[in-house]
């Protein structure tokens, strides 16, 4: 009960209604638990200027309050975005020096038609990870302009400049690189002689790298691919419409060469807020390095798995195997057939085979293993038999299939090796759909399939008839 408001029917009615409404949200209604991944590093902390002001206020507070209290958790909670808080740089680093591997940026910061040369002075640090002072002399006024940033490296090379606010002068674009999360750009606008970093609205849309998406398994995470770039003076970013499997034991990303993405350009407001402007869908062709607007029916390309590796040898035959580690493979006739791999200089490995009518494909399954000899074994009399054999440097071993998909072949599951060495299993789904799975080496003696896209076949027995559903 509110002690300062008389108990009324309304109080109780309000309390009951709120409880009823809240209770409508049940645990099972929530989206699957998503890891909370910090995409922003520590530089996105409150303003240096405000920090300085806060220090002054802290002193005043101590004077006024006597003993300072411990900060409450509420004190440091994020504030609503009533206003844009720009981080004004401290005047430090005049005596720092530019790293020999840094490249000065040239751009028209003051909009007078003449480029300024911005040098990057690095804070001395053993790991070259100190702050950076950006410094220039404005061509229009002859005055000095500067800013300070921390991108965890003092080796600085700017991206192409942008004019994100469309005011005719250019903004400096640096970037933060993060091996784990990919990184993001930082935009600096000249404001009253200072290079001030724009505050990013929706920073999760302005990153590069693989960002976790729902789903995943023991050997892979599902991720969306984010990217940013500068094109014709405009900062763009994109996020793949679909999520892809990223191997947790390998660096593999199961993604076709042409993918569709949601895209944004970034506009700088008068307040210094860098905000996204929806640009709809774009189609990214990574092979041609081109980005074009989507057509009405644009979708990710189908994976290039339609060309089947058909060449194989049988008992008593041998063949060179190329397309990876070069070697010769032979099936030796004996009481039990034996697989022989000859790697040159008289070195050979043998493995006894426990299969009827063995065949060895002469295309190497490089998608599974490429650090040494590997082959795909099949059987002329057992269409469901598929094995991958590789050399661990001392002997031949069969890789043990593990994970969500078995390495077998039947009416509901078909496995084939493509002409470029990708081992694929299609698993029948609902209706006439099939989910493609791509085999990867995941451990010393194990391989697992990572999920790809869902497709359809005109003839499920013929990978060449693959099509969108």
């Amino acid at each position, binding site marked *: 009960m509110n002690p*300062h408001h008389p108990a009324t029917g309304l109080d109780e009615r309000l*309390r009951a209604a*709120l409880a009823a409404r809240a209770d409508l*949200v049940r645990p099972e209604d929530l989206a699957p638990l998503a890891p909370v991944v910090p995409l922003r590093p520590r530089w996105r902390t409150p303003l240096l200027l405000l920090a300085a002001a806060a220090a002054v206020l802290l002193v005043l507070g101590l004077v006024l309050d006597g003993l300072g209290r411990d900060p409450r958790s509420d004190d440091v909670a*994020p504030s609503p975005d009533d206003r844009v808080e720009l981080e004004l740089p401290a005047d430090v680093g005049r005596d720092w020096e530019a790293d020999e591997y840094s490249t000065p940026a040239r751009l028209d910061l003051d909009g007078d038609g003449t480029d300024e040369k911005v040098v990057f002075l690095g804070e001395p640090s053993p790991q070259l990870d100190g702050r950076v002072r950006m410094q220039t002399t404005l061509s229009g006024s002859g005055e000095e302009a500067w800013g300070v940033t921390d991108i965890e490296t003092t080796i600085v090379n700017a991206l192409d400049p942008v004019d994100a606010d469309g005011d005719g002068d250019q903004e400096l674009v640096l970037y933060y690189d993060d091996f784990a999360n990919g990184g993001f750009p930082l935009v600096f606008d000249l404001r009253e002689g200072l290079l001030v970093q724009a505050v990013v609205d929706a920073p999760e849309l302005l990153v590069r790298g693989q960002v976790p998406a729902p789903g995943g398994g023991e050997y892979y995470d599902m991720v969306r691919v984010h990217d940013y770039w500068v094109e014709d003076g405009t900062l763009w970013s994109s996020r793949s419409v679909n999520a892809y499997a990223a191997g947790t034991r390998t660096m593999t990303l199961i993604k076709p060469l042409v993918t569709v993405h949601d895209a944004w350009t970034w506009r700088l407001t008068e307040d210094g807020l860098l905000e996204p402007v929806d640009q709809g869908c774009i189609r990214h062709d990574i092979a041609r390095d081109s980005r074009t607007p989507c057509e009405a029916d644009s979708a990710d390309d189908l994976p290039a798995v339609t060309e089947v590796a058909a060449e194989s040898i049988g008992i008593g035959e041998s063949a060179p195997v190329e397309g990876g580690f070069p070697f010769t493979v032979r099936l030796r006739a004996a009481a039990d057939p034996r697989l022989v791999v000859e790697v040159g200089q008289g070195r050979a490995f043998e493995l006894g085979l426990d299969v009827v009518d063995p065949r060895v494909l002469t295309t190497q399954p490089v998608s599974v293993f490429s650090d040494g000899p590997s082959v795909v074994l099949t059987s002329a009399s057992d269409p469901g038999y598929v094995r991958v054999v590789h050399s661990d440097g001392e002997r031949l071993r069969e890789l043990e299939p593990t994970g969500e998909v078995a390495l077998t072949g039947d009416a509901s599951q078909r496995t084939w090796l493509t002409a470029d060495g990708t081992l694929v299993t299609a698993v029948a789904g609902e209706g006439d759909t099939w989910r493609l799975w791509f085999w990867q080496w995941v451990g010393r003696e194990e391989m697992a399939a990572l999920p790809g896209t869902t497709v359809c076949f005109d003839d499920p027995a013929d990978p060449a008839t693959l099509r969108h559903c």
Partner: protein
Amino acid sequence: MEPSVDITELYAAHRLSLVRLAVLLVDDLASAEDVVQDAFAALARRPDAVKDPSKALAYLRVSVVNTARSALRRRRTARAYSPPHDLSPPSPEDTAVLAEEHREVIAALRRLAPRQREVLVLRYWSNLSEAEIAHALRISQGTVKSTASRALVALENAMQATTATASGKEER
């Protein structure tokens, strides 16, 4: 500095209650989940912001209230430029199964000013004291008191207006 709080544990322990708080502030579940996710992301970015684990929930609660307010502001801005049918956040499905008496209250709550709504939700659902609400909203206790009082009056008026409108429609 090592973070003092385990965000994963906090996430598991408090996500549901925070989503419930958020849904009372932003109406629909999807937005509420986003608000809570943003709150945790903010904490993840500054894991050392909360040094005392016992205060983590308070921190997150404040973060949810603030983020929800921002979400409502963005929604209002978007509405100003988009046809109403493009954005209809107070999802009817979300409250369709509420009893009629509760639905009337929740509908009236949506018509209050954000600050009034926050005070009522924190007082009558989160059961916070005036001092705690004052800290969460960064206003004085006196303002909490006056806001709560005015909010209840406004809520009652909104409910009466809703009832009158409904009666009028029935009569027609």
